[in-house]
């Protein structure tokens, strides 16, 4: 059965041109040229069908792109000097999801690098002269979990991290991303991912989080960074994933959210955009695509019903349009340069589209009120092999990842097992 593709799906501007419609048409032209090369010529008289069997994930090229980056980055990366903890995360998680080799040497060096980025008073930052940052801390903790092993896990001082998280905590339930920094839904997501992984969740830490996120859901149905601000893919994943950790996705209007998420899939391109009337971008393969397993669970849909979006169309977009065949790495859209951020988010978005990951509704843990239910509930997530959908060769298959954490299940389980075998924080015993 051919997968959905048609020139009829091109944007109809009703002959009323605006900046938005012109930009959209330009992108469609570019992507149309890519897709036309994949159309089976014999089907042209009947409208044209893409031969989706030909897509190949260019593993070796992406591995090269990543390994080159691990070795060193040019001065152009000066602008990422304050986001350095992210870079090993983008690299190692991409390698892990592709099933590429991460040897002991790389693990050791990554651990050592991240240890230098660990702030003794809590959190992670690029170097000792920068303030710890919540997003960097999230990336560093996830990178250490991907590396795995006691040496990596023990880089983090859990007590210091908890105290620092509570310093970032605001009265309205949100978190600032650094001292004096901005407050948005991203902060909540980072804090809860860190806390749920490290076994440092407390009532005080999570209080007000769900309410704040609910206030960020807009009339469109998606979630914005702050109450009132436009609904956006990145913040939608952050909000929904944070609520999944808390076990209270029901605070949202899930119907309206589902609708908004579905409309993010571009009918012609197949990939997702991040906001209404904006352009497709490969990274939303995770931020929006990755939210579908989460809303699947929130809506209590069964594995017999597929995700609410067109999986093959997304995979086609990623494989045909987002891979840089010359430089390696993945990108936003054709015409853009590949980068490590897009490489990771395209890959984990691809993984979450290839695999059906969910929680069996029959076994769902009912009591979500306790912070102690978190590890049990998070570990219930798993891939259902019979429901996987791989576009192109089966060798395109990636490791399945957890939609909340964006990392593969093996390292995730090892990490959770380790941190939850540690004694609870002294704060909890008081």
């Amino acid at each position, binding site marked *: 059965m051919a997968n959905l593709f048609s020139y009829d799906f091109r944007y109809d501007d009703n002959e009323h041109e*605006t900046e*938005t419609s012109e930009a959209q048409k330009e992108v469609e032209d570019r992507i149309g040229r890519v897709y036309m090369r994949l159309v089976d010529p014999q089907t042209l008289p009947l409208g044209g069908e893409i031969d989706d069997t030909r897509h190949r994930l260019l593993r070796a090229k992406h591995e090269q792109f990543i390994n080159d980056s691990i070795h060193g980055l040019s001065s152009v990366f*000066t602008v990422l000097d304050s986001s350095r903890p992210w870079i090993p995360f983008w690299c190692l998680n991409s390698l892990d999801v592709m099933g590429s080799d991460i040897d002991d040497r790389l693990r050791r060096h990554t651990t050592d690098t991240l240890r230098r980025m660990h702030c003794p008073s809590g959190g992670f*930052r690029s170097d000792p*002269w920068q*303030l710890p940052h919540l997003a960097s801390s999230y990336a560093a903790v996830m990178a250490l979990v991907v590396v795995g092993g006691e040496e990596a896990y023990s880089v983090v001082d859990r007590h210091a991290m908890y105290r620092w998280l509570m310093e970032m905590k605001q009265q309205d339930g949100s978190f600032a991303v650094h001292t004096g920094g901005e407050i948005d839904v991203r902060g909540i997501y980072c804090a809860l991912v860190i806390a749920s992984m490290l076994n440092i969740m407390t009532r005080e830490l999570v209080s007000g989080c769900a309410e704040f996120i609910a206030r960020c859901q807009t*009339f469109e149905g998606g979630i914005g960074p702050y109450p009132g601000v436009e609904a956006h893919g990145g913040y939608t994943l952050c909000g929904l994933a944070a609520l999944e950790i808390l076990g209270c996705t029901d605070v949202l209007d899930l119907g309206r959210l589902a609708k908004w998420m579905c409309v993010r899939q571009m009918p012609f391109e197949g990939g997702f955009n991040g906001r*209404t*009337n904006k352009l497709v971008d490969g990274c939303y393969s995770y931020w929006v695509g990755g939210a579908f397993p989460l809303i699947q669970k929130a809506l209590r849909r069964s594995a017999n*019903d597929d995700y609410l979006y067109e999986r093959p169309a997304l995979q086609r977009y990623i494989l045909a349009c987002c891979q840089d065949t010359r430089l390696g790495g993945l990108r936003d859209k054709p015409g853009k340069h590949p980068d490590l951020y897009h490489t990771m988010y395209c890959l984990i978005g691809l993984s979450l589209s290839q695999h059906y990951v969910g929680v069996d509704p029959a076994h769902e843990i009912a009591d979500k009120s306790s912070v102690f239910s978190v590890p049990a509930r998070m570990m219930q997530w798993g891939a259902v092999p019979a429901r996987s959908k791989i576009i192109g060769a089966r060798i395109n298959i990636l490791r399945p990842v957890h939609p909340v954490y964006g990392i593969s299940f093996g390292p995730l389980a090892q990490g959770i097992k380790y941190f939850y075998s540690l004694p609870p924080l002294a704060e909890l015993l008081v």
Partner: protein
Amino acid sequence: MGESEKHSSDKDDYVPLKEQEEWRDVTPIPQEEEPNTVCPIAYTDEYSDMMSYLRAVMAKREVSQRALDLTGRVIEVNPGHYTVWMYRKQLVEELGTDSENELDWVAEISEIHHKNYQLWHYREALISRLLDQKTAEALTQDQLVRHPVIRRELLFATNAIDGDSKNFHAWSYRQWIVRTYGIWDQELVFVDTMINEDVRNNSAWNQRYFVLMGNGSGRPEKNPDSPLEDSLVDREIAYAVEKIKLAPNNESPWSYITGLLLRHAPARLYNTLLPKLQALAAEGSGYASSITTTPMYWSALVDIYEHQAKDLPDQASVLLDMAKDACDLLAFDHDPMRGKYWEFRKSQLCAGTTG
């Protein structure tokens, strides 16, 4: 350390700080070069040099003009350096730097770095100090809009939006100014202008909802779930329909009006909006074909009939059938990419549960 080791940049010849008289008294703190670092960045000589001196002055908590200037140069090269922004903020406060000049400097940075987040957050902090809440509370909306500080900020945000009509930070900044200083009325005028410029600008439509309803913590006189005045609802329905007519296949006005009515005046979905949409569909061929071929029209009908069925249980069966038919039409003809969603929606209608 001879002439040949000077680093040349595009603009001027860069003179290392260690060669400058002004910095003789400072011992720079270089970045530690650790072996086996993963993903090491090959910083330019200029950046390394500036940062080693900046670390030194930050370490001794120096408050001086030269430190301030240095933060400016670092930010120009790496605007994402949030720690340096914080240090600059402290310096500006302790040195008593002229706020006007500082705002000018931020504007220069925004010319080079359009998508930078930190500069907006920094600007917020400057403005909060320049025009505190207590002073503002004593002024009327009119006076506030004409206040030089506010006028300047609105212009700054407008300029950013002129360059990038959907600049996420700029629209968010406007929300901050509007709710901090309570200048709601002028924002509606701005929204109208932007929607007229590009009816598909979703940031502008989002702003419209914000102006009408506040930000969830509520405008002083509105709470998020309060019903809207009839006249306001009438006006918004008319407005949305007028914009739909311009380009029916545009998500923004549809999502705006259905979102607004679902939250605040659901009965008006079928009392007022529906007849207007049906009139458009029955009109001469121009509108009829555009509107009945756009998925958003049928999608709105699903929402409308679903709600109508809830309110009028004796007509529910007929209405739900119409809603289900619309779902089928969407799944098979008008919106097949969302086929699975329409299947789901239809099943919810059958079950009598809300979507």
